[in-house]
C-alpha cells in the first residue's frame, strides 16, 4: 500500500472531522429540543441526527403505531406526568420513528465499515459492502417494530392469563351484593397485571364522567384486545338493560378459562415448532462436524 495515499487518507479523515466539528459544534447551534416522552432508550451518538431525519417522515401509519404503543402500555400521553412503563424503549410515535432511523443508521454505517474492511482484507468484490450495509440498515429499521409487536403479544397473553383468574374473582365479589363498579374497585385495590391497569383506566374515566358507556369506550379505544372488548361490552349491555351482572360474569369467566386453555395449547405448539428447526439443524451440523470432519481431513492429507 502506498504510504502517500495513507497519509492523504488520514489528512482527509482529519479534514472531515474538522469540517463536521465546525458545522455541528462551533458556532453552537440551538440544540434540538426533544420532549422527555419523545425520547428513546439506547440512543447514543447520532440520536440528534435520527430525530432530525425522522421528524419530516410521512406519518400515514402513525395512528396504527400509537394504538400499538397503547396496547403494549408503552404510550406516554401528553400531559401525563410519568411513563406508564418506564422500562419501555420508547413511548411515542416520534420516539419510535427516531429509534427506527437510529437503528438503521448505526447498523447500516457499522455494516458498511465492517464489510468494506472485510472486502479489502479478503479481496471480495467491493459492491458487497453497500449491499450488506443496506440489508443491515433494513433489519435495523424493522427491529423497533418487531420489539413493539412482541410487547403487544406478550401483554395480551398476560391479560388472557389474568382474565382467567380475575373474572371468577369479579363474579364472586358481585355475588356478595356489590355493584360491578364496586367489584372493579375491589379488584384494582390490589397490585395487578394488564387487566388491572385497564380497569384502573376505566374507573378513572368513570369517576370523571359518571358514565360506564364513556369509560368502556375510552378503555376499548386504548386497548383493542378482543377478549377485553367483549368483556366490557357485555358488562355494559347487562348494565344498560338492567339485567343481573352475576350470571354474565360467570359466562365470561368460563370463556376466559377456555381462552387460556387455547392459549396454552397454541403456545405449546408454537414452542415445538420454533425449536424444531434449531434442534434438527444443530444435530445435523454436529454429526457432520464429528463424522465428516475427520474424513475430509483424511482426504486433504492424502492430496
Amino acid at each position: 500500500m502506498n504510504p502517500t495515499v495513507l497519509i492523504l487518507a488520514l489528512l482527509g479523515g482529519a479534514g472531515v472531522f474538522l469540517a463536521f466539528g465546525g458545522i455541528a459544534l462551533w458556532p453552537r447551534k440551538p440544540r434540538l429540543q426533544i420532549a422527555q416522552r419523545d425520547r428513546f432508550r439506547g440512543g447514543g451518538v447520532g440520536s440528534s441526527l435520527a430525530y432530525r431525519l425522522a421528524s419530516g417522515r410521512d406519518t400515514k401509519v402513525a395512528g396504527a403505531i400509537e394504538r400499538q404503543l397503547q396496547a403494549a402500555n408503552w404510550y406516554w400521553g401528553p400531559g401525563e406526568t410519568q411513563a406508564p412503563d418506564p422500562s419501555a424503549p420508547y413511548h411515542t410515535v416520534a420516539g419510535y420513528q427516531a429509534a427506527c432511523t437510529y437503528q438503521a443508521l448505526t447498523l447500516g454505517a457499522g455494516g458498511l465499515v465492517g464489510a468494506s474492511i472485510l472486502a479489502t482484507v479478503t479481496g471480495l468484490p467491493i459492491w458487497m459492502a453497500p449491499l450488506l450495509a443496506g440489508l443491515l440498515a433494513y433489519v435495523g429499521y424493522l427491529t423497533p417494530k418487531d420489539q413493539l409487536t412482541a410487547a403487544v403479544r406478550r401483554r395480551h397473553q398476560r391479560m388472557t392469563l389474568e382474565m382467567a383468574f380475575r373474572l371468577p374473582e369479579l363474579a364472586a365479589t358481585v355475588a356478595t351484593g356489590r355493584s360491578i363498579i364496586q367489584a372493579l374497585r375491589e379488584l384494582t385495590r390490589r397490585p395487578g397485571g394488564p387487566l388491572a391497569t385497564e380497569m384502573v383506566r376505566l374507573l378513572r374515566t368513570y369517576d370523571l364522567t359518571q358514565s360506564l358507556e364513556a369509560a368502556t369506550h375510552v378503555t376499548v379505544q386504548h386497548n383493542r384486545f378482543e377478549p377485553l372488548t367483549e368483556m366490557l361490552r357485555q358488562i355494559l349491555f347487562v348494565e344498560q338493560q338492567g339485567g343481573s351482572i352475576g350470571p354474565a360474569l360467570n359466562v365470561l369467566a368460563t370463556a376466559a378459562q377456555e381462552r387460556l386453555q387455547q392459549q396454552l395449547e397454541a403456545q405449546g405448539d408454537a414452542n415445538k415448532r420454533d425449536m424444531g428447526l434449531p434442534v434438527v439443524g444443530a444435530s445435523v451440523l454436529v454429526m457432520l462436524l464429528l463424522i465428516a470432519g475427520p474424513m475430509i481431513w483424511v482426504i486433504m492429507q492424502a492430496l
Partner: protein
Amino acid sequence: MQTYILGLALLGGLGVFGTFYGLTAPPLRLRRAQTDALEAGLQVRLQRAQLPITATQFLLRGGLIGAAMAAAAYIASGSIAAGIPFLIGGYAALWAHLEDQRNRELTRYHRNLATAMNLIVNAWRIIPTLSGALEAVVRYGPGSGDSPDDEPQENSVAADFNQILRALRTGASLRSALQPVADRRQSPIFDGLAIALLTAEEQGATAGEMLERQAQLTRQQVQAFDRALNRQRTARSEVRNGTLGPWAILLFVRLTSSLTLMGGPMPADTMIPDSRMFFATPVGNLVGFVAGAITIGMYTLSMRIAARGLRLERVPTEHGREEAKA
C-alpha cells in the same frame, strides 16, 4: 483502490467525530434508577425461578455434571476442546432438571389445591362455616397425616391450611391469615381460592354455589396447566435426545469398539477411521469445540423455547408496582 482507501478514511474521520461528539454532547438517554442492580447474582436468580437449591450447591452440582459431560465428550470425540462447552452445559442441564422438578412439585400442589377446594365445598354443604371448611382440609385434605388428628406433612396443602387456621384462632382476620401463605406460594390458583374464601366469609351460608363454581374453575385451571407442563416435558425430552443424541451415538460407537479391541495394539477407531488423530490436531480441537458449543448453545436455547409461556405463575405486576414491592 486509492479512492476506496480515501473513502474508508472519510468514514474513519466521521467515526472520530462521532466519538468526540458523543463524549462532549449532553446525553439524550433517559435516566432512571437501576433498581434491579442490587438483585443481581445467582442466588437471586435461583430464588426468582423458585428453584430449590442454594447457589453453592448449584455451582458444585452443575460443575460435577459438567465435568462428567466434558469427560464423555472427550471420550466420544477424542478432542479435549470439545469438552469445554460441556463444562458450561452442566449448569444448563442442572437448571433444566431443577425447573422440571419445580414444575412437578407445583403441579402436585395445584392438584392438591383442587382437592382441597372440593373438600371445602363438601364441608360447606354440611356446616357452612369457614373454620369448619378449613378444618376439613387440615384433617382430611392432601398431606394431612395418617389419621385426622396427626400433624399435617410439611409443605403440604394441609399444612398451609393449618397455618391459616392457627392464625385465625389467635384472632387474626382471614385476609391477614391468608396473606403469608399467598406470599410464600406465589400461586394464582391459591390467590383465587383465597378470594373465594374471603367472599364466602362475607357472603355467609349462601356462598355454597360460588364455592362450587370456584372448585370447578380450579379443576379446569389445574388441568390446563397440567397439560401444558406435560407438553413441555415431552418437548424438553425431544430437545435432549436431539441435541445430545449425536454425542451419545458417538460415545456408544467409541465404547463398543474399545471393548471389542480391548488389549489390542490398534486405537479404537475402526468405525470412524483416523477421527482420534484428527481431533488431536489444533484444527480437530477447533472443530470439536465448535461442535460442542453448537450442541450446548442449541440445547440451552431450545430448553428455554420449550418452557416459554407454559409456566403457571402470577402475572407480572403492572398496576401498583410500588405497593407490590413494599
